[in-house]
C-alpha cells in the first residue's frame, strides 16, 4: 500500500523526465498523460483497498492517506489526466505555430509534472508542517507555468500569483504554529505529535484561544490558495495568462488542494471548539467569495477571466457548504468539489481550443462557435450550463444538496441568499458564453496538424462532460461509499 501511495505522487514526474530528456511536445505530453493515468489508476486502487479499513499511515505520520485524502487524490489525478491529454494538442499546436519555443515547451512539461506531483504528495501527508511545505512548493512550480508565455502580462500575473500566494501560505504557517502551540499541554515532542490524526484525536485537549486564531489564520492562509475573497486577487490574472491546460490544473486541482488543507483544520476546530466559530468564519469568507465572483462576472472581457471568477464563486459555495456542516453539508461540499473540478477542466480545456482557433481571449471577438466548430461550441455551451448548476449535470445535484443542508441547519436566510446569488451569477455568465457560441463565425484556420490531433484534443472534454452528466443522474455506489467514509473521517 505504501508503494502505491509513493507511485501516485511520483508517476506525474514522467512528463518532467521526458521534458528533461529533450522530448518534443507530443512525446512529452503522451508521457505526461501516461503518468497521470497511472496516478489515477493507483488512487482508485488505493480507494478500493482503503474501503472500510484503517487509514494508510507510516514514516512517523509523514505518510497518511484516509478516505478523504483518497477522494482528493482521485479528483486531482483525474484532472491531471484530463489536462495532460489536453496538453497533447494544445502545446503541440503552439509549438508548431512557433508561439512557444523549444525551451518553453520543455519548461512547461518539466513544471507541469512537478506541479502535479507536489499536489498529490500534499494530499498524502499527515504532517501539517510538511503539508505547508508541499503547498508552498506547488505554488513555486505552478508560477513557472503562469509566466510561461513570457510576455509582460504573463510575467506580471506570475509575480502577482507567486508573491500573494507565498504571503498567504506564510500566514498559514503562522496558523500551523499556533495550532501546535495550542497543543502545548500534549507535549508534542515527536514528529507524530504534529500529525493531523493525532491532533484530531486530542482536539479536546487543545487550548481554545490559540486554536481559534490557528483556524482563522489557516483559513486566510490556505484560503489565499483557494481563491476565497478578499484574497482572490491573484486568481483571475493567473488563470487568464497561463496556457489553457495549466489554467485547468490551477482551477480544478490547485484550488481543491487548498480547500483540502482548510478541511483538515476545520475538522480539528469543529471538535475542539464546537461548530459555531468555524461556521461563522467559513460562511463569511464563502459568501464574500460568491458575491465577488458573481459581481465580477458581469464585466465582459477575457473569457478565461470569466471562468476564473466563476472558480472564486464555486469555491465560495464549497466554503459555505462546509460552513453549513452536518452530513448533508459535507456531502454536498465534497460532491461539489468533484463536479466543479470536472466542469472547470472541461471549460478551460475547450477555451484553449477557442483561443487557438480565434487567436484571441476576448469574449467579444469570438462568435459563431457552434457554426464553425460544433463540437467545441457544444461542449462550451453545455459545460457553462453545467457549471452554473443546470440540470441534468452533477453540479445541480450537489448545489441542491448544499441548499438542503442550509435549510436543515436552521436559519433559512443563508440558503435563500445562496439561491439568490446563484441566480445572479447565472445571467452574466450565460450571456457571455451564449454570445460566443451564436452568431456568424469569421473565417478560421485549424491550428492542428491532422484530424487525429483534433480528436485527441476533444477527448478530455467529452470524457469530462460525460462524467458530469453521469454524476447528475446517478451517484455510483462506490463514490457514495467513499464520500460517506470521508465524512466519517472529518465529522
Amino acid at each position, binding site marked *: 500500500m505504501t508503494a502505491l501511495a509513493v507511485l501516485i505522487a511520483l508517476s506525474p514526474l514522467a512528463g518532467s523526465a521526458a521534458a528533461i530528456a529533450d522530448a518534443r511536445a507530443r512525446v512529452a505530453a503522451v508521457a505526461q498523460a501516461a503518468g497521470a493515468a497511472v496516478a489515477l489508476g493507483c488512487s482508485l486502487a488505493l480507494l478500493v483497498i482503503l474501503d472500510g479499513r484503517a487509514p494508510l499511515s507510516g514514516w512517523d505520520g509523514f505518510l497518511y492517506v484516509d478516505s478523504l485524502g483518497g477522494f482528493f487524490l482521485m479528483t486531482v489525478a483525474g484532472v491531471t489526466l484530463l489536462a495532460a491529454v489536453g496538453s497533447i494538442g494544445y502545446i503541440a499546436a503552439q509549438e508548431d505555430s512557433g508561439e512557444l519555443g523549444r525551451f518553453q515547451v520543455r519548461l512547461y512539461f518539466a513544471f507541469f509534472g512537478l506541479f502535479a506531483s507536489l499536489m498529490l504528495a500534499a494530499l498524502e501527508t499527515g*504532517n501539517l*508542517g*510538511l503539508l*505547508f*511545505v508541499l503547498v*508552498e*512548493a506547488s505554488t*513555486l512550480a505552478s*508560477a513557472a507555468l503562469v*509566466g510561461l508565455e*513570457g*510576455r*509582460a*502580462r504573463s*510575467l*506580471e*500575473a*506570475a*509575480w*502577482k500569483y*507567486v*508573491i500573494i500566494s*507565498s*504571503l498567504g501560505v*506564510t*500566514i498559514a*504557517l*503562522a496558523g500551523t*504554529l*499556533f495550532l*501546535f*502551540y495550542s497543543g*502545548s499541554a500534549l*507535549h*508534542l*515532542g*515527536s*514528529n507524530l*505529535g*504534529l500529525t493531523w490524526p493525532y491532533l484530531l484525536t486530542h482536539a479536546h485537549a487543545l487550548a481554545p*484561544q*490559540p486554536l481559534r*486564531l490557528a483556524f482563522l489564520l489557516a483559513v486566510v492562509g490556505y484560503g489565499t490558495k483557494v481563491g476565497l475573497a478578499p484574497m482572490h486577487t491573484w486568481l*483571475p*490574472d493567473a488563470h*487568464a*495568462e497561463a496556457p489553457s491546460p495549466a489554467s485547468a490544473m490551477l482551477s480544478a486541482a490547485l484550488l481543491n488542494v487548498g480547500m483540502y488543507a482548510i478541511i483538515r483544520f476545520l475538522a480539528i476546530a469543529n471538535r475542539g471548539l464546537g461548530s459555531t466559530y468555524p461556521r461563522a468564519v467559513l460562511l463569511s469568507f464563502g459568501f464574500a467569495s460568491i458575491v465577488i465572483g458573481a459581481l*465580477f462576472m458581469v*464585466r465582459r*472581457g477575457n473569457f478565461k*477571466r470569466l471562468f476564473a471568477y466563476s472558480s472564486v464563486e464555486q469555491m465560495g459555495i464549497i466554503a459555505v457548504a462546509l460552513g453549513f456542516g452536518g452530513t448533508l453539508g459535507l456531502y454536498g461540499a465534497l460532491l461539489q468539489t468533484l463536479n466543479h473540478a470536472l466542469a472547470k477542466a472541461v471549460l478551460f480545456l475547450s477555451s484553449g481550443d477557442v483561443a487557438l482557433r480565434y487567436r484571441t481571449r476576448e469574449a467579444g471577438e469570438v462568435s459563431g462557435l457552434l457554426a464553425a466548430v460544433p463540437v467545441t461550441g457544444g461542449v462550451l455551451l453545455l459545460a457553462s450550463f453545467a457549471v452554473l448548476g443546470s440540470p441534468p449535470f452533477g453540479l445541480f445535484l450537489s448545489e441542491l444538496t448544499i441548499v438542503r443542508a442550509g435549510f436543515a441547519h436552521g436559519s433559512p436566510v443563508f440558503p435563500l441568499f445562496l439561491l439568490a446569488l446563484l441566480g445572479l451569477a447565472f445571467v452574466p455568465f450565460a450571456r457571455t458564453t451564449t454570445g460566443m457560441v451564436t452568431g456568424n463565425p469569421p473565417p478560421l484556420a485549424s491550428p492542428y496538424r491532422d484530424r487525429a490531433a483534433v480528436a485527441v484534443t476533444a477527448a478530455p472534454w467529452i470524457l469530462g462532460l460525460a462524467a458530469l452528466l453521469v454524476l447528475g443522474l446517478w451517484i455510483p455506489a462506490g463514490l457514495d461509499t467513499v464520500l460517506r467514509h470521508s465524512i466519517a473521517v472529518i465529522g
Partner: protein
Amino acid sequence: MQSLSQTSTAGVLLDLSGVLILLLAFACLASKLFDRYVVYYGAQSVVLSFAAAVVAVAFHSVELWILAALTLAVKGIAIPLVARRLLVTRLALKRDAAMSTGLSTSLIAGGALTAFAYLVIRPALLPYDTVAAAVVPLSTAVILLGSLSMVVRRHTVAQLIGWLIVENGVFLGAITLVATFPFIVEAGIFLDIVAGVLIMVVFVSGLTRQLAEASAAELRELRG
C-alpha cells in the same frame, strides 16, 4: 513545552530582540531607498539569529543552534548581499517612488497595526508571565508591518523585502512559541529556499526588462 519566563535573562534578551526587530521593520517601512531596505532587513535578520541563539542556550537545543547559524548565514549575510548585487546594483535602483500612500500615512497605519496586534494577541491567549506574552504580539506586529509594506509599495523588489520581513516575523513567533518542536529547522531551511527562488524570479524578470522596468505602477493591464 516549557516556556521561558519574562524575568529570566533569556526572557529579557528575547524581549529586547523582539523590540529591535519591530523597530527595524518600522525603519524599513519609513525608508524610501532600496539600499536601506536591504540594510534594515539584514540587520533584522542578525537580531533574529541572536534571538534564536538565546533560545538555543535556554533550552540546550542543538537544532536551534543550527537555525541561529542558518539565519545569520542566509538571511543576515547571503540574502542581503545577493539582493544588493543582483537587484539594487544591477537594476540601478535608487529611490523607490512607486508608493501608493505617503510615508507618514503608512507609518500611522503601521502604528495602528501594531496596536491591533496587541489587541488581538494579549487577552487570554497566552499565560501572561511567560515571555511569549510579550514577544508574540511583537512578532504579529512585524508580520502585519511586512504585509503593509508589501501593500503600499509597488516595486517588485520592495514587495520581496516586505515578504522577507513577514517571514522574519513568523520565525520570531515560532522560536518563542514552539521552539522545542520538531520541524522548525526544516521550515526555516525551506523558507530560505523559497526566498532564493523569489530573488531569482525577480532577477531574471528584471534582466528581461519586462517586469522591473515597469515597476508595478505602470502595470495596469490586468484589472477587474
